[in-house]
């Protein structure tokens, strides 16, 4: 590192011996307004052009893989939901699928209604994650209006998720052997209604993104990732699909209820290989997800939602593949005929995709670095998993649940009571 006192005003700083002369090193992160989570990219820039980018991750590593070895399977479902704040449900589906896959070797089967409920929640999660990404991307390119409006519409999906599961973030819907909560008819009706509204809004945003000049100027021919490179660097999810590589675990390797509607499933790809293509792919995927949810809601079978599973999972090595909103998610489970996993390996889409970012950034302008990084929808908490603090004192914990209307009333009351500053 360069001694700080040696830095002269305005002189280019050559920090490392390996980098070319006449390049600045600009750190992107760990703390940066464009990053919602900590990571670090060392950008070597020549003027405004990025020559090289070196990623460094691990700032939120919490050791969840190690911790998972000490917990039972049902406790682990709760734990893996904490891997990521946004795509939490898909982690628990993945682990449940892995454990149920091991049980299936002995003939255990999960009720179909539970699979449908899981899939519906997973698709709702994809919708809210993609709209969230759209807002963040709009913010990165300085288009705050789209950011605010898209997040307003995301609230519809969040309300639905809260309606079904009682939570906005960690839904806790899954149990080994089924789902923990059922859906009644009024919830289904509300969901159908909201899905129609969401489709309408997303069509509008699609229109905006396809036709708005400044968005096109900022996203077209930025962050180019050619299909060949995408394959070499193991890109997954929307990042790969935006490069024209048609891989989608939901279609290629159907899990839960995805096998049921494989004939109406579309693998969305787009072939301009840049950030614009990512925007288009994500928006269309959101619309598609709404359509799948509507199909599932109309075809959901009756029946039990839960079948009691044995506590001990037989010895097996199960690879469970699922499609998280950001790409392919792997849970590789080694069970050893006890109630705790022997080894649980989680590989998240961001770890596969982070390599592509360096490739996408090279040759681009510094101004594009953040939208390029954001374009893969990075989720660094997913990528880094470690916990060292364990709170042993759970006796005093008290849970108070507020309903949505109570919360709204509280906020309204607070606003009227605090119109002026009080001491």
């Amino acid at each position: 590192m360069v001694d700080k006192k040696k830095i002269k005003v305005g002189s280019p700083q050559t920090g490392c011996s390996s980098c070319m002369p006449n390049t600045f090193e600009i750190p992107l992160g760990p703390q940066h307004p464009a990053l919602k989570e900590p990571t670090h990219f060392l950008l070597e820039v020549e003027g405004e052009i990025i020559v090289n980018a070196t990623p460094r991750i691990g700032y939120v590593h919490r050791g969840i893989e190690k911790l998972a070895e000490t917990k039972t399977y049902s406790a682990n479902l709760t734990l893996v939901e904490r891997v990521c704040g946004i795509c939490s449900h898909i982690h628990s589906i993945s682990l449940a699928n892995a454990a149920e896959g091991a049980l299936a070797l002995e003939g255990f089967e999960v009720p179909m209604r539970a699979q449908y409920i899981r899939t519906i929640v997973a698709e709702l999660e994809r919708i809210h994650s993609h709209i969230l990404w759209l807002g963040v991307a709009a913010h990165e390119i300085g288009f705050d209006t789209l950011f605010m409006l898209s997040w307003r519409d995301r609230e519809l999906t969040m309300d639905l998720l809260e309606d079904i599961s009682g939570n906005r973030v960690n839904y806790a819907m899954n149990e080994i052997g089924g789902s923990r909560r059922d859906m009644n008819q009024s919830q289904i009706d509300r969901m159908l209604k909201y899905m129609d509204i969401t489709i309408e809004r997303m069509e509008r945003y699609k229109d905006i993104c396809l036709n708005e000049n400044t968005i096109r100027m900022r996203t077209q021919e930025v962050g180019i990732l050619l299909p060949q490179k995408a394959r070499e660097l193991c890109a997954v999810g929307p990042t790969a699909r935006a490069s024209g590589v048609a891989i989608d675990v939901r279609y290629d390797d159907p899990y839960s209820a995805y096998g049921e509607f494989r004939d109406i499933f579309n693998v969305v790809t787009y072939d301009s290989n840049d950030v614009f293509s990512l925007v288009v792919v994500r928006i269309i995927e959101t619309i598609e997800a709404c359509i799948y949810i509507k199909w599932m809601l109309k075809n959901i079978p009756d029946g039990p939602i839960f079948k009691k599973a044995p506590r001990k999972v037989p010895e097996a090595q199960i690879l469970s593949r699922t499609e998280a909103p950001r790409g392919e998610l792997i849970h590789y489970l080694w069970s050893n005929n006890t109630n705790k996993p022997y080894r649980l390996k989680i590989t998240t889409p961001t770890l596969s995709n982070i390599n592509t970012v360096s490739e996408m950034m090279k040759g681009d302008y510094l101004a594009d670095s953040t939208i390029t990084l954001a374009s893969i929808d990075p989720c660094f908490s997913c990528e880094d998993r470690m916990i060292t603090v364990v709170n042993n004192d759970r006796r005093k914990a008290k849970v108070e649940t507020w309903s949505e209307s109570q919360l709204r009333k509280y906020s309204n009351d607070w606003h009227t009571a605090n119109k002026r500053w009080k001491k």
Partner: protein
Amino acid sequence: MSQTLQDEQNIVDTLKSQFGKKILEAEVQQERRINVKVADPDHLEVLSFAMKKWQAWHLIAISSVDKPDGVIAAVYHFDVRPPFGGQVAISMNLMIDCDNRDNPKLASAYNLINGAEFFEREAHDLMGIVFEGNPNLSKLILPDDFPEGVYPLRKDFLLEIQKEELAKKEKKKR
């Protein structure tokens, strides 16, 4: 397991006839899953063969396991038959044992698939497997000042709660 597993069986048969004794174990685990076990440098041959024959370009992940018998192993997960024209993908778990626990070494797949770099670095950080041929095996996930030679995901690295549990068991025995 009533479904026909013909495609999966074909792949296993092809591998067995191609590599003969180099394949230590090969079985169809369940629908769309194949487990194969080979020795150290052979996994690169299997990979490149699969890449030529089935266009297996999609490396999904690389896992590392500290097996119950004390052997450290790496598992390469890849789509041995990637999806084409609406077919389902078939994925393979290719397991390779390291022969030495203190200094586990494996040949890196970096030259075959560049994307393997980060997966291998992760395994290097957490399980201590040295992938020979990987251009950059510096710390990726753990902090730079993390002690050398300590690998958190090995079974001999104990968390506080694991230590407590062990102590409780000891007490019960007494």
